[in-house]
């Protein structure tokens, strides 16, 4: 989809059906200052991304991942993104030996769809190669019950951690305060690990459809995935994902510390996301994308999901009609549970988190 089509769909859908809710009054409470120029989102390469596809990277029947293929994709994709010839140089652009690095995985659909441990392991290996100590690598998510279903430790160097906010907790004094629907608890707090321990973050989302936000990629994984009390933005058929995702992602120190996004598109979800326990809604893009600009990657993701939905004759992620709001969202690709808000990507661009205009993107496709 080109930008014109993208905007036409957005405009038409808003005329024909429900308009977007007014932006709530957000208060960002943080003692952290923005990082140095160029650090964090959108980073030193706004609008640039690489995408690498390899047909044998995952077997659709067994969903088994080909580790050797992933290793090659991780190397070639990262080199294409940075333009470097040596993979160590590519990673050294973003990380120094003194860093304490968080790898923000996505386990919300685990064990069926989640950040592949093979990719997470390769990231850790490259971090160690530039001098980061294994004990300073923190693979993390919010919920322990989800992470328990995937053996990340088997792919990590000895000493690396796999932790969740269930045990590490949230920072009581770094939060976004807002009232959406009159909920009692009006704060969403940043994971304590992020504010108190990490110096850098590698964001590893999946390629997924999302019933509330349209798609879930870099922005949502780093926003809803790093803060507490975010489900409150959904109520009845409405959500505030349009503005909340970008608002959370843009707050310090999260914004400055998120220096690299590696989007895991080996497997994907084209409907029923983010959990998608039904295999018929999973598909296999067999690609990995790299970038410092989360908006750019998510903009490409939006096309991937929309095209797959069109191929499956499912309603558009931009569909805002009341007719589509009906029971059975988990089973019916033409049913919506919420009014979806794929415009959250454009909204995040407006906050300076990256570039959403596809014509301005520098997309480096790598043939594996």
């Amino acid at each position, binding site marked *: 989809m080109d930008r014109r089509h993208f905007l036409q769909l957005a405009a038409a859908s808003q005329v024909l059906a429900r308009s977007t809710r007014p932006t709530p009054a957000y208060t960002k409470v943080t003692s952290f200052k923005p990082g140095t120029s160029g650090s964090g989102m959108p980073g030193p390469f706004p609008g640039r991304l690489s995408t690498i596809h390899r047909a044998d990277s995952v077997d659709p029947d067994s969903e088994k991942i080909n580790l050797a293929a992933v290793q090659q994709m991780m190397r070639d994709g990262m080199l294409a993104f940075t333009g470097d010839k040596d993979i160590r140089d590519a990673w050294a652009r973003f990380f120094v030996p003194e860093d304490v690095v968080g790898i923000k995985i996505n386990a919300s659909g685990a064990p069926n769809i989640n950040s592949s441990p093979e990719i997470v392991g390769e990231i850790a290996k490259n971090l160690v190669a530039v001098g980061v100590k294994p004990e300073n690598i923190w693979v993390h998510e919010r919920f322990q019950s989800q992470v328990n279903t995937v053996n990340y430790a088997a792919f990590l160097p000895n000493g690396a951690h796999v932790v969740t906010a269930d045990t590490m907790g*949230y920072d009581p004094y770094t939060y976004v305060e807002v009232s959406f629907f009159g909920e009692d608890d009006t*704060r969403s*707090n940043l994971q304590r690990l992020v504010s108190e321990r990490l110096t850098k973050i590698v964001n590893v989302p999946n390629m997924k459809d999302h019933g509330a936000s349209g798609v879930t990629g870099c922005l949502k994984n780093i926003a809803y995935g790093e803060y507490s009390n975010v*489900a409150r933005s959904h*109520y*009845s058929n409405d959500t505030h994902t349009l503005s909340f995702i970008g608002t959370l992602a843009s707050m310090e120190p999260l914004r400055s510390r998120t220096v690299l996004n590696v989007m895991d598109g080996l497997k994907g979800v084209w409907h029923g996301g983010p959990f998608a326990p039904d295999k018929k809604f999973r598909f296999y893009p067999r690609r990995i994308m790299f970038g410092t600009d989360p908006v750019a990657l998510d903009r490409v993701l939006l096309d991937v999901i929309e095209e797959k939905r069109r191929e499956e004759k499912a309603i558009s992620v931009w569909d805002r009609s009341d007719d589509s709001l009906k029971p059975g969202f988990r089973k019916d690709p033409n049913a919506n549970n919420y009014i979806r808000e794929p415009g959250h990507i454009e909204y995040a661009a407006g906050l300076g988190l990256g570039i959403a205009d596809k014509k301005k993107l520098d997309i480096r496709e790598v043939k594996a």
Partner: protein
Amino acid sequence: MIAALFLAAVIPSIFTSESPTNATDLVKAGIKRVYVPAANIGQWKSSGIEAVPDSELKDYTNIPAPGMKMRADRAAATSIPWVDSNGWRYRRGVKRAYYSNLMAGAAPLAAAEAYAYGAEAVLAPDRADTTATAAMLRFLQSIPPVDLPAVANIGVVDDGSALLGEVLNLLTRRNLLYRIVPQKDPKLELNVELGSEQFPKASAANPSDFAARVREKLSDEKRSLRVYNTSTVIGYLTGSGPRVRLHLLNYARRPAKDVHIRILGAYSKVRLLDSADAQMQAMDVSNHRGGTEFRVPSLQTYTVVDLEK
């Protein structure tokens, strides 16, 4: 914020229809007397506990068991806990309460609830709860007594209606601090009178929406108490001047983890007394944006928090 008269807390008593075989636990808990069916009085004479005929409970208000249910009848990302609290009954004026129908597991919370709100209560615990109830009663006895008035931001003119009762229930569950006033009190931040221009009677048809409207008119900034990261904990704040005491009751069976509290005003000392963990301390204590904030790591049933300037 304004303070109103508060009754000194009293330790709840027990009703039992059984023989005094469990008297040891009751004695250990400091129970000096029990309410029993008149026919059982004789059995209790040598138990060391005074037995009082249950006919004396006729002046007590029969109130339901406190607790929590999950409701999944609304389309939301998570199901909504439905808290059954008697706080509003106490705030409305019940001073003597009889918890006659306590299912297993409910008695410790009932004891704590009555104590927190300063009511004279009698509990009829399930037999399975004897030990846990005795432990709660021992804990209640260990709390240093103070006689502090209730803190309120809202005055509610009580018309005695069932409708207003449900409004009070929802205000309690949303941790909106109020007191019953005979007429509007200009010293309070907000007054609520059903039938007034600001709060027409029809607007109370949905008490939950009504409570939300009250909260909006008060504004969160003026609230003396905020409770974060839980939807099952209700706070009852008492105090004046340099000292306040906060009663925190968890209506769920599971402990509420990392409950974050904000109390308007700057306090330098924060001390926890928890019914399940004598060693528990307030964490992340900070004077933050005009309030004192802290974290209660794990709230099983009842935590008392004393704050001093």
